[in-house]
């Protein structure tokens, strides 16, 4: 059956239907995540504060997201008078489209990948940075002082955090030597010590310390990546874009109904993309990390191997997403200059240092 399917997907109709399947799948995946991560967030917030969170609608409040969605959809869409209508309505579209596009390049499993791009990583980051412009346009177009302050904050925050983020990504690219996300994951096969985060530290299969081809600073790199990911997705403690206690709702102040809902969905979609990237860059993507014990490669198990791989990927990704919620309900919002100081004074020098040291550790062994 699988052979005939692969044969079908090679025909033109197969290519078209495959694209359609992935389009619908990704849209559904993003929508389901946006809806139910809100539930996870609320439940998590509750548990962290020793209360149960939503309980009333459905079992354990599971019908809360559809209820919220119906409420948002039934609201009237209004643009404030004097606002730039085109930009005002373009902003929600621009904020939700990039994560959808980014997910096309992210491999969920062995064969579960919409487009195997050679420059997948570059594409994800170039589309990921549109988010800033969308928030800025939305804040600026709504002709509201809170929104404008928030837009200014978003730009300076995202510029500050794009730099260390891209620096650590360059560090990882130096180790992997490829921008193809699927290839990056394949390189991390075998035991969990082959995952990029641990690869440079200890090789259990006999390599010992400073395994060549790895990055000994990968844990620090991962940490910088994680912090930048929080800042890029405007999550607490870096939620300057939507600082409720200071700026009403920041750039989203004037948005109502599904306009606001789309921004909200985009926030979670961006978290999914960010955590998926962290997973496949550092935590081995769909690799189970149990290679030496299981003794077989996942791709040799056919459809079941793919399924196990997807589950591994989701397990790691949702653990990271949970940690994002965990961080949000642990730390208070930073002050704005504290945020910029962290980036310019600590993260950028640190990421430059790891970049430099990584290149040294990669090149030094070749000199002898």
């Amino acid at each position, binding site marked *: 059956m699988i052979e005939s399917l692969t044969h079908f997907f090679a025909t033109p109709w197969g290519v078209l239907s495959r694209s359609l399947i992935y389009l619908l799948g990704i849209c559904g995946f993003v929508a389901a995540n946006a809806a139910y991560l809100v539930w996870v967030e609320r439940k998590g917030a*509750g*548990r*962290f504060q*020793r209360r*149960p969170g939503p*309980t009333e609608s459905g079992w354990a409040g599971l019908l809360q997201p559809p209820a919220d969605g119906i409420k948002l959809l039934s609201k009237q869409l209004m643009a404030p008078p004097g606002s730039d209508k085109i930009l005002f309505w373009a902003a929600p579209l621009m904020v939700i489209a990039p994560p959808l596009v980014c997910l096309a390049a992210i491999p969920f499993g062995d064969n579960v990948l919409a487009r195997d791009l050679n420059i997948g990583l570059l594409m994800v980051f170039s589309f990921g940075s549109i988010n800033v412009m969308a928030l800025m346009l939305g804040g600026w177009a709504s002709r509201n002082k809170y929104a404008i302050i928030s837009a200014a904050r978003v730009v300076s925050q995202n510029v500050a955090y794009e730099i260390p983020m891209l620096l650590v990504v360059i560090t990882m690219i130096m180790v992997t030597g490829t921008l193809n996300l699927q290839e990056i994951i394949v390189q991390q096969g075998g035991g969990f010590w082959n995952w990029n985060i641990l690869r440079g530290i200890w090789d259990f299969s006999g390599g010992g310390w400073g395994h060549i081809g790895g990055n000994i600073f990968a844990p620090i790199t991962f940490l910088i990546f994680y912090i930048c990911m929080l800042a890029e997705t405007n999550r607490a403690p870096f939620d300057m874009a939507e600082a409720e206690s200071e700026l009403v709702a920041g750039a989203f102040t004037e948005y109502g109904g599904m306009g606001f809902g789309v921004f909200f969905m985009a926030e979670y979609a961006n978290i999914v993309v960010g955590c998926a990237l962290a997973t496949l860059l550092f935590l081995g993507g769909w690799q189970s990390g149990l290679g030496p014990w299981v003794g077989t490669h996942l791709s040799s198990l056919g459809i079941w191997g793919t399924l196990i791989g997807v589950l591994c990927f989701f397990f790691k990704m949702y653990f990271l997403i949970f940690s994002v919620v*965990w*961080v949000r309900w*642990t730390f208070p919002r930073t002050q704005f200059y504290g945020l910029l100081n962290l980036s310019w004074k*600590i993260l950028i020098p640190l990421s430059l240092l790891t970049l430099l040291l990584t290149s040294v550790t990669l090149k030094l062994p070749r000199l002898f």
Partner: protein
Amino acid sequence: MNLVTETFSGFLSLLTGLTITIKQFFSPTITTHYPHQTLTIAKKFRGHIELKWNEETGKPNCTACNLCAKACPSDCIVLDGIKPAGEKGKTVTSYKLDYTLCSLCSLCIEACPFDAIQHSNRYNLASLPNQWANMDLVQRYKDQVTRVGKTPYDPYAPAAVAAPAASPAAEPAAAIPSPSSSLPAPSSQP
């Protein structure tokens, strides 16, 4: 160097914070899920006033002397009473409380020479407008007496009929809860 040590110790403190919150995450919740669960209201809770009654006879202590109404600084008590046939003193027939004016100052309770009123422990009195502007405390007394399985005292009844209420042979005295503790879950009340 200072920046390095500060960064490092700051990062460690962040980890400390994260361990504290994750411990809370896996601990049981400590909230009461209000409409489904209610806390026990303390007896000393000062809700609106209510009439006390004699636990054995089921008759209200109030003699309609109007001292509470005179003591009330907000003028929110209006009461009336009659002298029932065959009785020595008056007894209350209507006791209206404008709870929207009441400030729960307890002056009426202090003024009462017969220990006839007390604070109830009702706390959830959300209502449509003016529902509590004319509280009928006699009706509340009758409901409470009925709830513990007794006949409310009827001052208009002939003396012969009013008397049997004084001999509740079937009911052991210990089983009769006090008026304040006999309240069921407050949400079920009118």
